[in-house]
């Protein structure tokens, strides 16, 4: 059985906005699965359907065999969910937020305290638990939200942009905690992200989505291998014509990037790099810099869609950060 199985899922919002246009996704039980794509690709819409918040226009989605539209109540008992936006009562303490949710989840009065304290400990929030959430940092807020989502021991944990707006250290800590929990519990993790390195590093399987359609699916290494090549990037002194001619003569495909560097597609860059330098040197071309670069999921995405994943990154992050600041101010 699959943790998530979506077939030909379509969601059209009012005003004929097509958010999902025939999406098929299968998430293996026990895996960590990412859905990666630019903002507006349909990631959040997909998540809102499988968390039973909205109904699909057509097609079907199942969570552990339960249809999200027909058996929403069963689905809700199996999932833990952390939305992209902040989902805590900021004028309560961390402990109180957990206490209210423990009652909502129907955790037995006798074991509430233990469950809450264990999760606070796991997320390293024990010391901060008596403080109002509005005094928390972004990373602490995220960890508390995850702690709450884990309280019901979900079989499937669904995270929408779990580390958006966090600094690298806070991001790493969030993932450290998530993976530690996953290892112990074998919970399936499904997350949406527009950070390609996050999908690359923390997901067993990655689904690439663009404009409401799935463009590729596979393990990160499969996906990167599918575009056939890593890259060698070199910078030469003076005019690049001579170097380009040499490389083309020797059967390499060559492109130029914005910095006047030459990009050579190569299956085995470690092997190609010394040979290219030697060949150029023998032609009297001076190589100033050279490096081998592994393909990224972004390269895969560009190859398939012609666009980058994180084009509007900065505006979006600023917006999220300013929202978090506003929350902390309590305004």
């Amino acid at each position, binding site marked *: 059985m699959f943790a998530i199985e979506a077939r030909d899922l379509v969601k059209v919002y009012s005003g004929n906005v097509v958010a999902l246009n025939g999406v098929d996704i299968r998430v293996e039980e026990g895996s960590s699965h990412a859905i990666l794509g630019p903002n507006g690709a349909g990631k959040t819409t997909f998540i809102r359907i499988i968390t039973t918040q909205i109904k699909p226009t057509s097609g079907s989605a199942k969570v552990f065999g339960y249809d999200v539209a027909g058996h929403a109540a069963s689905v809700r008992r199996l999932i833990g969910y952390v939305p992209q936006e902040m989902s805590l009562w900021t004028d*309560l303490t961390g402990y109180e937020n957990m206490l209210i949710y423990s*009652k909502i989840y129907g955790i037995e009065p006798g074991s509430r305290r233990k469950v809450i304290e264990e999760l606070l400990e796991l997320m390293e929030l024990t010391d901060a638990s008596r403080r109002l959430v509005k005094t928390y940092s972004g990373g602490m807020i995220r960890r508390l939200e995850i702690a709450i989502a884990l309280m019901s021991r979900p079989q499937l944990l669904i995270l929408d942009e779990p580390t958006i707006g966090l600094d690298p250290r806070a991001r790493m800590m969030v993932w450290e905690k998530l993976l530690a929990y996953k290892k112990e519990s074998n919970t399936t993790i499904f997350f949406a992200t527009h950070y390609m390195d996050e999908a690359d590093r923390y997901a067993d399987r990655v689904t690439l989505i663009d404009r409401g359609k799935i463009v590729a699916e596979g393990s990160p290494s499969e996906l990167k291998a599918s575009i056939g090549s890593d890259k060698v990037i070199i910078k030469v002194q003076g005019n690049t014509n001579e170097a380009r001619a040499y490389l083309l003569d020797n059967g390499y495909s060559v492109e130029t990037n914005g910095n006047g560097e030459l990009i050579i597609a190569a299956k085995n860059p470690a092997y190609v790099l010394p040979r290219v330098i030697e060949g150029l040197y023998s032609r009297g071309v001076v190589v100033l810099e050279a490096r081998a670069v592994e393909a990224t999921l972004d390269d895969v995405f560009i190859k398939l869609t012609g666009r980058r994943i994180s084009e509007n990154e900065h505006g979006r992050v600023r917006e999220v950060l300013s929202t978090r600041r506003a929350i902390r101010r309590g305004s």
Partner: protein
Amino acid sequence: MRGKLSSASILAMVEMEIRRLMHDPSEIVARAVQPILWIVVFGVVMARRVLLGVEDYRSFIAPGVVFQSATFISLAYGIMMVFERESGILKRLLSTPIPRSSIVIGRALAGSIRASTQYVLVILSAFLVGAHFKTNALLLIGGYLTVIYVCMGFTALSILIASLMKTRERFMGIIGAITMPLFFASNALYPISIMPTAIKIVALVNPLTYAVDMLRGMLLGLQANYMIDLILITAFNILVIALSIKLLDRIIE
């Protein structure tokens, strides 16, 4: 299990609200200013002029002002839902096993408890400027419970409006448009008998009228149609709570 889960989650919603209020009780004081002015300024000044066919005006308007200020808080409660919609709280809440009915009933009860503090403050300040109430403890407690019961309906109405309006601006627009007319077109400030027919009709379909009638009966010993009042208030509560449960999902669409 289902029943247990529902009542536990209703109480969890109420507990959340009370804990919030305890972290920042200054709100209770700030909100008390306006109704107290109604009592000690409007009530006292108007009491000097016998023009309404009411003998003891200070006492007469106290139940009206209780409900005016309490329903105002109830009706504004929906803004909290709009905020929770903008943050991720409602999205998360709606994907937990908690029934929709628990969210609405729990929040309606939470909002009405928030509003009910006005009862104590208004009655106390009216007493201090010379209003006379029945000194029967049971009736005073009954009055308090009446306020909570009535305000549940108005809070549910507010949640319903929040589900339909979705944004702060539109929500505040609607709430602003209904609160004052609700107050003036009721028996809160003057008896229905002196109203022109058109306003009388509005007052008779206004649930606030029956709430005030009931509270006046309890606190002042005036003649009240308890049965009719209770039936109509209950009908109003059931209607708005049911609609609010049915339409709650719209808030996150």
